[in-house]
């Protein structure tokens, strides 16, 4: 049996089996207690808000991916220190998102810390309608002012420095401008833009899905930007309220200069297009700051109409390089999706994805 502690209990039901729905008289509550699907695991039982148990689907079509455990138990544990304690005491074999300050303790107890860069960015979307970030020099200054190595130290190594939107291993990475730490250059750019001290307000959350360690990370960003000539005000709110600000768009929140909502970057649309395309202006899409640029729009239209992979990759590379040159985001961190697991856990290979394959995982006695 493998027991995994999750930070939240969000388990999405992606499809409804009509046969099972009919069997339970189309009663959703009953269906949720007895769902049916087509994957390598079979639902066994659940206690709402407490645990979800799966057993291998031995009739799965791909025999190589029939799970190697006899049972997989998922337990929601929102508190990071509780997850750590549960792993250390052997109550669970695997925890998601251990707190950075627990890493040394976990390592010293022989636990495995598994990380791999994956398409998920911790950055800031900027207001292109009103305020200092409408000026490219201010956006570039903010990016030059950040010492991302300090941020990595803060997170005990659990991040990759983000200098542009994509990670270097991405097929359409190209040769983007990289905003390495240069506080002198940042100050000079602010002076040139006539914004010194440059007053900006960041909307941030106290926690939230994929937000890593939002409070200490934002405080570090603030101190580094302030040192370079900014005057950052952090406007903190809960995750749901920040999502609402994000959905409303910069028009609805003109007093906010940037929002700190971490974003998945698993495909070209999510990684690049939605941040800069006028067709995705909030509230219609995720372009919160209403970035708009005729040249980029034209490029995006040609990307969406291009079905030749090589040609599309070239166009995407061009878009990525343009976005970096324009400093459309404040780039901070690529998440490493950390997990900690008992030394008994074998066979797990972390994919560069939000989704993971647990079928090959085994537990040694």
């Amino acid at each position, binding site marked *: 049996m493998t027991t995994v502690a999750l930070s939240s*209990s969000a388990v999405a039901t992606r499809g409804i089996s009509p046969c099972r729905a009919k069997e339970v008289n189309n009663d*959703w*509550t009953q269906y*949720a207690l007895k769902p049916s699907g087509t994957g390598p695991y079979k639902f066994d039982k659940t*206690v*709402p*808000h*407490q*645990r979800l148990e799966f057993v291998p689907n031995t009739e799965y079509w791909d025999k190589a991916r029939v799970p190697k455990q006899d049972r997989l138990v998922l*337990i*929601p*544990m*929102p*508190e990071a*220190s*509780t997850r750590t*304690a*549960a792993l*250390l*005491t052997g*109550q669970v074999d695997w925890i998601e998102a251990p707190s950075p300050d627990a890493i040394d303790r976990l390592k010293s107890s022989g636990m495995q810390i598994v990380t791999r860069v994956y398409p998920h960015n911790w950055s800031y979307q900027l207001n292109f309608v009103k305020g200092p970030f409408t000026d490219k020099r201010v956006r570039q200054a903010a990016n030059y002012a950040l010492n991302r190595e300090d941020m990595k130290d803060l997170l005990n190594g659990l991040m990759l420095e983000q200098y542009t939107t994509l990670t270097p291993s991405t097929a359409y990475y190209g040769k983007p401008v990289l905003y390495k730490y240069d506080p002198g250059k940042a100050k000079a750019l602010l002076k040139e833009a006539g914004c010194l001290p440059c007053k900006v307000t960041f909307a941030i959350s106290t*926690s939230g899905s994929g937000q890593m360690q939002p409070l200490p990370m934002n405080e570090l960003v603030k101190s580094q930007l302030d040192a370079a000539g900014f005057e950052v005000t952090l406007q903190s*709110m*809960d*995750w*749901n*309220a920040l*999502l*609402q600000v*994000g*959905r409303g768009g910069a028009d609805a929140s003109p007093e906010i200069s940037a929002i700190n909502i971490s974003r998945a970057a698993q495909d070209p649309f999510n990684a690049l297009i*939605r941040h800069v395309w006028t067709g*995705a202006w909030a*509230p*219609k*899409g*995720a372009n919160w700051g209403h970035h708009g640029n005729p040249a980029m729009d034209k490029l995006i239209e040609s990307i969406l109409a291009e079905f030749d992979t090589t040609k599309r990759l070239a166009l995407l590379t061009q878009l990525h390089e343009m976005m970096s040159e324009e400093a459309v985001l404040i780039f901070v961190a690529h998440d490493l999706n950390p997990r900690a697991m008992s030394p008994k856990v074998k066979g797990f290979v972390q994919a560069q994805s939000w989704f993971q394959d647990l079928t090959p995982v085994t537990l040694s006695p």
Partner: protein
Amino acid sequence: MSFYILRRILYAIPIAFGVSVVCFSLVYIAPGDPLQTVMPPDATAETIEIVKKAYGFDKPLPMQFLIWLGRVLTGDFGMSISTRRPVFLEVSEALANTSLLALFAVPLAFFTGYVMGAIAGCFPGRWIDRVVTGAAVIGVSLPNYWLGIVLVIFFAVEYMLLPATGMGPNGSTGFHILEWSSARFLVLPVITLSMIPVGILSRTTRAAVAEVHNQDFVQTLRAKGLSEWAVTRHVLKNSLPQVLAVMGLQFGYLLGGSILVETVFTWPGSGFLLSKAIINRDVPVLQGTILTLSLVFVAINLVVDLLQSLIDPRIRRA
């Protein structure tokens, strides 16, 4: 007495109505949108409108309140937005789990707090009073989530004497209070949860006992030649109404669960449910849980009022 009971019950009705108005409004005053968590980040304005309509959030607030109140009066608290389960089911299961904690935390807190306070009140200014008062201040001042984490590190991680978290290997469905394999999961959360009520009760009891000690009738009792033990009995009885009022509030607090303690111990009670409902902005669950807990508070206060009037008939005449 029956007229007094009827009057107190009638008083409770407008309070319950007021509570329902406040708990319905509170979740709307807070920033955030209840539908954020069920919609994709790129949902169009049209999709948002359709979903709002489906959940009834497109209607004016007073109308939403009346519809909600009408349903609540028939026992229908609505459906959870995030789990699509009936809120009544969610709240009743969570409340049952929290009641298990309260079942042990209440006697532990009340007994310890009362005994500590009574001892301190009987010996004001003496060393034992200072020790008890100091312990009470520590109990009140320690953040209970911090204490919970420390207890877990000490008893679960370092010495492996007790489990760190949860309700046992099968969750609440496999929990058997009479079996140590289940009951051991209660120990740390119960101790953590009872720490603040112990501090509050011991301080209240100490103050009440010390105050009664200074009253004239105590001198009269001594003058009559009663033993010190008999005098103490009278003092304790006369201080009880004050202590009972605070016990009622603390009983409500313990029955309401604690968001922080239940989150630290992943105890699937009402506090844990509330914390998840807040994060997901699950408005029906929030409203149902807050209303139920508030009504529990109103009911407990009613019982405490009646108990006080039984102990001290002067209250009935007031």
